[in-house]
């Protein structure tokens, strides 16, 4: 597996956020999902940087909706995960599961 196909941890989080959000995945909701569920406070620059990279790899696609006054007349850019993205995500999970198989770590140590 080449490096290009490998998903970083943050990329995985972003793809999972897209799956969790479904039809409502755009910049702000993704950022908030990362913050509220994953506890990762990031800037929009990071969110878009990652999403753009994933789009280049063909893992996600995006489309612009109608302009909205609450955004100063700008439109939301909705993202959705592509089949290739879902494959990459489940591969990443398999890889982690294989590595975790048979490994035990004290819960305490992780929480500290």
């Amino acid at each position: 597996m080449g490096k290009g196909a490998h998903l970083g941890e943050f990329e995985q989080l972003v793809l999972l956020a897209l799956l969790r959000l479904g039809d409502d995945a755009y910049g702000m909701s993704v950022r908030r999902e990362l913050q509220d569920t994953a506890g990762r406070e990031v800037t929009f620059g990071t969110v878009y940087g990652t999403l753009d990279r994933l789009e280049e790899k063909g893992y996600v696609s995006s489309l612009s909706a109608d302009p909205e006054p609450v955004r100063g007349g700008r439109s939301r850019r909705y993202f959705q995960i592509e089949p290739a993205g879902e494959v990459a995500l489940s591969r990443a999970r398999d890889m982690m599961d294989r590595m975790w198989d048979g490994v035990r770590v004290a819960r305490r140590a992780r929480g500290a």
Partner: protein
Amino acid sequence: MRRPPRLADWLLTRFASRYVRQDVLGDLHEEYLCHVIRERSALGARLWYWRQVLGTVVGYHAIRGPVAEDGLVRSRRTNQQWETPLPLESMLSDVRFGMRQLSRNPGFSLLAVLTLALGISASTVVFSVVNAVVLRPLPFEDVDELVSIRETTPRGDRFSVSEPTFLDWSATQQSFADIAGFTGGGATLIGDGAPESLAGLRISHSFFPLLGIAPIMGRSFSPDEDLPGAQARVVMISEGLWRRRFGGSTDIVGTNLVFDDGGYTLIGVVATETAFPGNDVFVPLRADPESDRSNHELEIIGRLASGVSMTGATADMQRIAAIIGEAHPATNADWGVQLLSLTETRIGPTLSRLGYFLLAAVGLLLLMACVSVSNLLIARATARQQEIGIRAALGAGRTRIGRQLLTESSLLGLFGGVLGVAVAAWAVPLLRTVGANTVPRLETASIDATVLLVSLLVSFAAVVLFGLVPSLHVARGRLFSPLRTGAVSPSSGRGRLRDTLVVAQIALSVLVLVGTGLMVRSFVQLQRVELGLSHDDVLTFGLVIPPSSYDGEARGDFVHALEDSIARLPGVELVGTTMVRPFAGFRPSNFVAPTDRVPDRVEDFTPISWGAVTPGYFAALDIRLQKGVVWDPLAPAANMEEGEQPGIVIDRLLADQLWPGQDAIGQSLVWNQIGGTTARVIGVVATVRDEAVAVDARPRLYWHYRDMPWVRVSVMVRTSVGPETTVPAIREVVGGLDSNMPIFDVSTFDAMLADNVAVPRFTMQVLAGFAMAALLLAAMGIYGVTAFGVQCRTHEIGIRMALGARSGQMVRMLLTRGVSLTILGLILGTAGAAVLAQLVETLLYETATIDAVAFAGAAVMMGSVAVIASWIPARRAARVDPKTALASE
């Protein structure tokens, strides 16, 4: 604050990648609104916004890496291709190179950054303070239209306004949209918890609407509630009191608050902390048209009607004053009106001058920091001459190399600026705590958007100042000499430039040192002022004796009983009471005339300051009785209605003024007006200076407290032990006499006195800090020049030493340069200081602007530091073994 910060948006559109800026802007605006609604704090939302914008500008590139302009297949964006290409990617490589250069020489970089941070943090702190205290507009709507209106006496002195006059003005004036009156008040809040004495204001119903202060809850007073004799017992409270005492409860409006004189209905809560700090309760003024016109108690503010100038309004008011003077000649003949902008009256000329003075001083310091860094950069460019020469030989253009040096300077400026602002962000809250209650509005000092913007500009200006000279130097080709090594003459172009910079540094330091010296001298003069009273081991506290429970006679009895009980406490020696404590920042004035020489016109009466005290007051503060006696503490108040003449005590100054060369005891005088109360002098005491340390004493008259039993008093307790240790016992005594009577403003006399000179002390301390920094910077500069000169002449030194020169001779030879630069700097600095000192004349107390000690002190200090700074490298060089020196090439 519904709109996100514009500057942040601009930054984003300018620097974020054009692929995402519209998306990010949309998301940001959307989420910003959520933040504003949820957090209620606009500041929190703005901070969040800024963090997002800055993070996005940097973060997107960090993740994406450099993006090829045509590397993306994204047809939906083709309509945005007109946007300018991003300069950031190309700049980043310059910056990376600069960072490498700076980290190669960490000592130099650290020194430069620290020097800049010193200058920038000092400027930021001083600017944030001056901005809060002097520059920032008062927190009122359209503050430029607000005017303070006062009466003027026939002599032309500004005076407070009487209630009937205020009402006449209100009814007849045509120049103001509205006018409002207010005066000090206050009450003791009883109810849940300990009774609390609160300061406040009595205000006319127009007061808050006129200032543009809307209640955050409830309403302001109605005109009906403001009529004399109105029965409604209504009160408004400050937001601070509401939060502190009532836990910010939202259903408080309409409830009943119990004060010392009964219950009041709370009708509104107002945010007045920045506008009228310290005032917590507001009640209607209810100005009475029948009240005494010679009783001047009100402060009046007006809002100019649109299109009316200050001059026009003054003419209108003078016309009205003349009409009132005709109608009431006994009290108002020849009284006039004076208008001043509210800002001017609230801030005052001294404070503004001090503010500008401090700004100028810190500007000098910043300039010095820039000169220092400039000097460092030139030295480094010299050291890098070979590297630069090689790069030039390999084809790098002059502009390219100059630009690279400027990038490095900008990086230094950036780090210096960030560190400087960080230090300032830490120092400003500290300063707020230290200086609390000393300088008005200091508590509002903060690093806000304005201050940040100014720091940004200052850092930028600093970069231009310190970075441009060396860069131009390079670009002009001074460093493009052939690839030669070895001896460089210190008198070459850059040597001269560095010499000039050092002379400038020394001259600037002398300016700062002289300014500090003058302030110190002036402060010492202030400390030496003879006050005429002794204040060691004196405790003071305030007390309100509510008129609802105590009439005038009862107040006299209460104070007597109180003094009696306190005097019996262990460790207490003497007790006295006064209606206005010394150094209160306010002292009532009036007019008197000897009964046998009453002038025809009130304006020819003698103006005096006055107070009402108990007999024990003079003893407690050790104010010497020079002649006659003081009152019998048990004697009842004089029955003035029956024509009984009260006995009064006057000070030496008034005695000499009214009865020069005669015995004042037994003489009598008329109080306040023709046909007013007459009083008989029974004692003469020493003159005391108790209005402000820097203000000369005015003639003083003391009434017996029983004859003028004011509601609010201050008690002075002289103790034989530490004054503070008696506080619990005193609280117990007061509580024993009346459990609803809190004591407040508990302080030692010494602390009160220190507060009175807090502003000059504050200025002096800040300046002393500047002076130390300036000395340090100048010392670094001169050290650098000598060390550089020595380095250039190592070879020559070696030859001379080998030929038998003694090390003493060598030191002298090497010192010559530093010393002559120092002398030149001292001359220029002293001359400049002599000119600039005229500007601070009004800030000085009994100190000449050309003060010999301050000037000589500055010159000697700077001179010796400079000589030591050049002696160190010279001596080191002169001790070098000739063999080593000769081998240095």
